[in-house]
């Protein structure tokens, strides 16, 4: 079942045409990754989906697995997206440094009012990332880079999203942490959440993903399953170091 369907998405920043006619589709239960070099427009695509940048598209529709209804999310503000089940862990983590770990997570559940469910989900995030539980009273700004990444993913989970979007979750992490983060992404997916993953670390992303799109200077050049792209000579040469 198609969950997110985008046709001919375009994003302009002044005279810069950052995203050109990108079409993509995400099915329920998938991990879909968008890979590409720095500046290829990956983040712009994800920010356009979230409603954080102005964009144009022939279609940008979201089908909620909660009620099966399909709605257009084009031009809707970000806060509306959260309510219908889309959430984003942004590039650069964007932790609120003056709020505690727990307050950051509580903010992630802002649209919900089921306090028991919120408490359950906080426990769930703490089981995924035990480090956060140890530090739940610490200010977000005092965490290490890896811990902040965990907090950003945990915070995005707190709205109980059906579609979780992760923008560069491995950026700046030590290799051992990268494996851990991708393991957790697979675990979150196995529990029934659909994931759109934007990554520069193409190898790790393709290994984790069911399907992938390769973005080059603002347009989709290739797409296929994760395994297909891992073995594609062009992808290997461009993104996987031969």
């Amino acid at each position: 079942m198609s969950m997110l369907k985008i046709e001919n998405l375009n994003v302009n920043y002044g005279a810069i045409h950052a995203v050109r006619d990108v079409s993509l589709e995400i099915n329920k239960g998938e991990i879909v990754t968008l890979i590409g070099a720095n500046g290829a427009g990956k983040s712009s695509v994800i920010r356009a989906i979230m409603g954080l940048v102005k964009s144009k598209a022939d279609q940008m529709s979201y089908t909620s697995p909660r009620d099966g209804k399909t709605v257009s999310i084009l031009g809707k503000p970000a806060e509306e997206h959260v309510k219908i089940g889309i959430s984003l862990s942004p590039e650069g983590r964007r932790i609120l440094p003056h709020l505690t770990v727990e307050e950051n997570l509580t903010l992630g559940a802002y649209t919900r009012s089921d306090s028991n469910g919120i408490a359950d989900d906080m426990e769930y995030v703490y089981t995924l990332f035990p480090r956060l539980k140890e530090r739940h009273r610490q200010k977000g700004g005092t965490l290490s880079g890896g811990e902040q990444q965990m907090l950003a993913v945990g915070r995005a989970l707190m709205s109980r999203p059906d579609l979780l979007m992760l923008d560069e979750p491995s950026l700046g992490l030590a290799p051992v942490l990268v494996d851990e983060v991708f393991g957790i992404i697979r675990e979150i997916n196995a529990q029934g959440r659909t994931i759109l993953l934007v990554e520069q670390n193409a190898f790790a992303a393709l290994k984790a993903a069911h399907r992938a799109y390769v973005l080059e200077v603002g347009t989709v050049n290739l797409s296929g399953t994760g395994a297909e792209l891992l073995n594609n000579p062009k992808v290997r040469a461009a993104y996987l170091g031969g």
Partner: protein
Amino acid sequence: MNLNIFIQHFINALSLGSLYGLVAVGYTMVYGILRLINFAHGDIFMLGAYFVYFATIVYHLPWAVGVITAVILTTICGLLVDRIAYKPLREAPRISALISAIGVSFFIENFAVVVFTGMPRPVVQPPILMKPIEFSGGVRLIPLGILVPVVAFVLVGGLMWLLYCTKPGLAMRAISFDIETTRMMGVSVNKIIALAFGLGSALAAVAGIMWALRYPRVEPFMGMTPGIKAFIAAVFGGIGSVPGAMIGGLILGFVEIMSVAFFPTLSGYKDAFAFLLLIMILLFRPTGLLGEKLEDKI
């Protein structure tokens, strides 16, 4: 100076300081969220005083009803200022909103002159607030002098509770650091901004009402000097910090009252002390007493 007189000065300073604090809290909240100095805030304070004057003295409503009516009307005015003068400029450079704020301030003051006339009007104080109470040792205090700081502390305490123990308060603290991320969490940012303006205006209204009772008169420019001093108090305490604004207000109140109490010859320089404090804090601790810069971690 004997103890009796000192206690009277002390209570006086506490009253004045907590009024500055109440107004300063409104400056600091709006600045914390929008990085905007809401120059119209002192005029919102003036509107609060006028509304209570009309409600109780012209329309003879009971004080309790008059105060509530005045606070509600003033809050609506504060929200309208945001809606009309600042909201359309959210994406504009900060200087545009600042200029708009100065314009709104002039507009409200002159509108008040046209509607209310420029003549100061006397406020009839409720006798119950003015009847001195005798304490042991010959200390005499009027109830109003005690009521003002009590009300101010209760209101600021309530605001602190809202900021630190409720969801809208959490959103407000989050917005002050990163609007876009807060929006990503599902927060309707404009509603939270309106809440900050509403709360700040309500507190300014209460301060204006109590000010009108202390110096029993209202006039269209009565908000200018207290407004500037409250702004100084907010900067002194660390702009963006609610407890800082209250502390800054109290310090300013004490400096003003005590300098005149101990050095009566300096009474003509009373207003200069506020600016002296501003210059000192900007020179030696530009972030204010409680203002802190958080380092970004990469």
